[in-house]
């Protein structure tokens, strides 16, 4: 990175660290923080969307749809996360490849499963074997987003389902008395009011999601935990210009600080959001706000 870094052995400790912390591997380490934040930024709204869909179908008046919603919630909530992550991602990937195989190579005569091998024609590979590494990584990342969204969507669905039922029945009755249709009452009266009931549960989920990001490593994505372990490991002078002992403790300490700081920021933001949502609501929080303002 810096011009004086060509011979690190001669440097003082400040110079040495300035070189050490700016090597290519460390850049990958910093990049992995962005990956994790990006995953959270994408997954949270998608999971919320899935959760909203789940809650809507669970309370649907169409019985089969309601079964679908309730089964989804019960099934995903019941299966351990790790089992889901290990099984589902491979299954999803193979399902994609199988579909593409059927479409792109109709005249393929060999079986797809040969012993332990899962074989599809070259054109059906996902991503293609010739695709650059970043495509493979983005693909893995998308699989991770889908998996996280489905897992956390189920929990969010349950929270939202409860929140929808917590909105006082009188509110809906009033809406109906004004002549609103079922859909109008749902979107105009129920949904705006349910968030205040959903937020404590959703904020919990957000915290759990933050802490669940190291599961990314199970999906083959090089996240911050992978790099902390890799960079902190003992380095002998034969293979690096920056030899050091077992520094994993310091790297993991840094991760600890990162996660703690991140949860603290989330707490502050969620608290503000709660204040906003409580405003004008027929809850004890809303009542307290009203009295304080008077």
């Amino acid at each position, binding site marked *: 990175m810096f011009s004086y870094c060509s011979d690190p052995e001669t440097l003082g400790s400040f110079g040495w660290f300035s070189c050490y912390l700016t090597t*290519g591997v460390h850049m990958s380490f910093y990049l992995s923080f962005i990956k994790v934040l990006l995953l959270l930024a994408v997954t949270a709204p998608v999971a919320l*969307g899935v959760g909203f869909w789940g809650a809507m179908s669970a309370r649907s008046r169409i019985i089969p749809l309601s079964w679908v919603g309730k089964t989804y919630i019960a099934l995903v909530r019941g299966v351990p996360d790790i089992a889901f992550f290990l099984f589902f991602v491979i299954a999803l990937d193979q399902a994609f490849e199988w579909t593409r195989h059927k479409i792109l190579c109709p005249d393929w005569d060999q079986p797809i499963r040969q012993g332990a091998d899962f074989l599809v024609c070259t054109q059906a590979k996902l991503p293609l074997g010739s695709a650059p590494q970043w495509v493979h990584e983005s693909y893995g990342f998308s699989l991770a987003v889908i998996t996280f969204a489905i897992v956390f969507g189920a929990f969010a669905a349950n929270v939202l389902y409860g929140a929808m039922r917590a909105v006082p029945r009188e509110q809906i009755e009033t809406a109906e008395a004004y002549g609103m249709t079922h859909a109008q009452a749902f979107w105009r009266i129920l949904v705006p009011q349910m968030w205040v009931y959903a937020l404590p549960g959703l904020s919990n989920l957000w915290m759990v999601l933050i802490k669940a990001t190291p599961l990314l490593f199970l999906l083959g994505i090089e996240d911050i935990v992978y790099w902390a372990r890799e960079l902190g490991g003992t380095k002998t002078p034969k293979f690096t*210009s920056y030899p050091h002992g077992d520094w994993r403790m310091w790297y993991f300490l840094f991760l600890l600080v990162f996660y703690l700081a991140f949860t603290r920021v989330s707490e502050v933001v969620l608290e503000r959001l709660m204040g906003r949502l409580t405003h004008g609501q027929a809850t004890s929080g809303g009542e307290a706000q009203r009295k304080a303002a008077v």
Partner: protein
Amino acid sequence: MKKLILGTAILALSAGLAWADTVRMGTEGAYPPYNFINDAGEVDGFEREVGDELCACAGLTCEWVKNDWDSIIPNLVSGNYDTIIAGMSITAERDEVIDFTQNYVPPSASAYVATSEGVDLKGGVIAAQTATIQAGFVAESGATLVEFATPEETIAAVRNGEADAVLADKDYLAPLVEESAGALMFVGPDVPLGGGVGMGLRESDTELRDKFDAAITSMKADGSLNKLLVKWFGEDTATY
């Protein structure tokens, strides 16, 4: 929001149509001198050089992929990459699931490393990396086996006293013992294990295996493999 998921799925389903002969080489990146990540963040080491040369020799375009050791075989058979080139010893158990090329590292010794002499290698606690031939050997030797996901952790376990000794490839341990300034030492006799290190491929991929086999044969014949062995493992290493 549903559009987002749909978008992801469509993106996933609609990759381009052109494809070429790119071979994806799967490695661990945590086992110097065989393979490791260098300061620039790239895969480096003996196998990087051998692999690149083999690909040039066989006229293939190769790309390097990192994968955790634990899941390195499952990801090969499900097609995430095409070869394993990660210091993997050729054993009968592995040969049932995947295919190997001929070895490109002659059968070499594994060794025990401990912090002091006189460790009970038959009845003590021995660390080894999960799913390695060394782990299998320790389990059968009567000692208590503690397994770790990465080689680094097996060494750390010996340093902090969690394990009495570690069993691993001698080539991996030698630089660590050298650098430890007496804190670590080889104990007991060397243990010959495995049938040398070979490249792992899917059983159905016989064409690719033949290509690499031929390339290895030619590298053995012209002495270029020996040069790399000496460069990475030192003068005393076994050559062809």
